């Protein structure tokens, strides 16, 4: 989804943070950013024009070495352009929270924490959002088998 008019934005952005590696995935712009530079990169992207927060999610690549990946989508309205930020997160480590730059990341980071157990450092209230507070485990991790979670509310009257 690259448009020629947006090229200067990407170039500007690439010049600001040196550790960011730009790439292309099926015609869409992706950037791999080390977790230490994430806040700086997101800040720069907002200044350059990617001002709308769209999405944040986590992916569990079970057999890869940094096991988790946090994916952030930002959008520029004029000219229309998107940038997708990929941050690798080793199991057991945390990522800096971007809620300071985009308050809208709040719920998305809670969701990623809830479903994958990825921790976001500096999040104001990192609690479960979709699952009950007393839930154990993180069900979208690949090492949680489908069907392993006991189903609630299945008590029915037995006919004997």
């Amino acid at each position, binding site marked *: 989804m690259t448009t020629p008019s947006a090229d200067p934005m990407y170039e500007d952005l690439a010049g600001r943070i040196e550790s960011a590696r730009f790439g292309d995935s099926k015609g869409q712009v992706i950037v791999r950013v080390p977790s230490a530079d994430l806040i700086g990169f997101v800040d720069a992207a907002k200044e350059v024009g990617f001002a*709308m927060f*769209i*999405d944040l*999610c986590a992916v569990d690549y079970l057999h890869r070495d940094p096991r988790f990946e946090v994916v952030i*989508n930002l959008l520029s309205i004029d000219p229309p352009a998107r940038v997708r930020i990929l941050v690798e997160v080793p199991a057991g480590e945390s990522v800096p929270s971007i809620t300071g730059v*985009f308050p*809208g990341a709040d719920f998305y980071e809670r969701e990623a924490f809830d479903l994958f157990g990825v921790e976001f450092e500096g999040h104001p209230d990192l609690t479960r959002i979709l699952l009950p507070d007393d839930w154990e485990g993180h069900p979208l991790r690949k090492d949680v088998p*489908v069907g392993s979670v006991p189903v609630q509310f299945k008590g029915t009257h037995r006919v004997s």
Partner: protein
Amino acid sequence: MSKPPDIITGDTEAPAFAEAAKQGSVKPASERRVTHDLWLSGTEGPTDTGRFTDEGAQEMLLDEDPEVLAGQRGTLVVDDYGEDAVSDEVTQIINMGPQHPATHGVLRLHLELEGETIKRVKPIIGYLHTGMERTAEALTYMQGPTNVTRMDYLSPFHNELAFSLAVERLLDVEIPPRAQTIRILMTELNRVASHLLWAATTGFDLGALSMMIYGWREREAVLGFFEKTTGLRMNHNYIRPGGVAADLPDGWEEDVVAIEETVLAGLADYEGLLMGNPIFIERTQGVGVLNPAECFAFGVTGPMARASGIDFDVRKAFPYSGIENFDFDIPVAQHGDVYDRFIVRFEEIRQSLRIVRQAAEAMPLGDTRTEDRKVTPPPRARIDQSMEALIHHFKIFTEGFKVPAGEVYQAVESPRGELGMYLVSDGGAKPWRLHVRGPSFAHVQALPAMLTDSLIADTIAALASADPVMGDVDR
């Protein structure tokens, strides 16, 4: 000779009670009251309540002290609201939902009030969470649309379209022009149906009860066409990777023209009913305001953002399925309040009908599925002639087709805003990860920005104008 049954109660024993009362075998009112009290307290079983329980309750009321009686009747009001109870520090937390009718699903809001002013709002979600993103990892790409169509259940076609476009981008297959135009036709009709339902329920929440009936009435015309085309009124599984499931039914052109006429006539009614109505204006103008900066921060898109003056539509910015060939406008309003969201959505219905008309006039002929045999099963007739075709058919429906490894984000403009699907494939026949970016999720998150420092009575209007679909929020 037996007595005829009492015509009011149907009780043949009723006259016996009058007899018993005359003979003095019915207990006086005071004793009956005692019996009644004991029965209520639960310390003893009723000794002789019999059929007199209800009469006892009546007596109890009449025997009371006049002051208590006046209190019960509401004629005496004791003002015990002391000065101590009023304080600036005291706030009250009330809980709205999850079963509140105006939440249109199972959304719960913690409202912290100071008097009638909302100081803090905390949306609590997850009541409809069923792990559909995980379910998607267990279904093949061909089965995928059956899952995603159930997420945002008011715009099923948009879910299917976003999923199919994401898969097709990874597969790199060509979709025939007829299938693309059918996709546009169905998604735009779906936008009309969704906005009609929104107008109906939001009008209802604001007290315009006729709007409820009108909106559902016109939506019915659209759903009838969906049923004729896909077999179902919702959860269609019609748009699939590689094309659409079936061609349009015979006589679809007349149906589309009829829908357009019905909805346009209805729309004029709604605008006459609502937009100039002083009560409606009072309840919507300046209510639930979002400014553009808040929209950017919270990822508010779609009609909500356009009502706040942000000229952004995925259909114009990142066109899909050939929507760039159609002529339509993007309505933008400036105030960002509930009233402007009505203006924007009503105009969007008109613009969607414009697209529908153009799609119907310029519907190309040809296939409705891609020619790529990796994705599309062989035609039924070939299966009778060729063993290979039969094997191929069997393999596609048991194992599914494989999608090259990669990751892709595909967005479409759903009636609520930007609906995105982030799809990761590991090269197998099932997605490695499917994340759905639902517009409602972002809009529920923006509720505190809309509601803080407004009156509690405006909660309903602001919430309804955001049009959250809880299936989309919780997934």
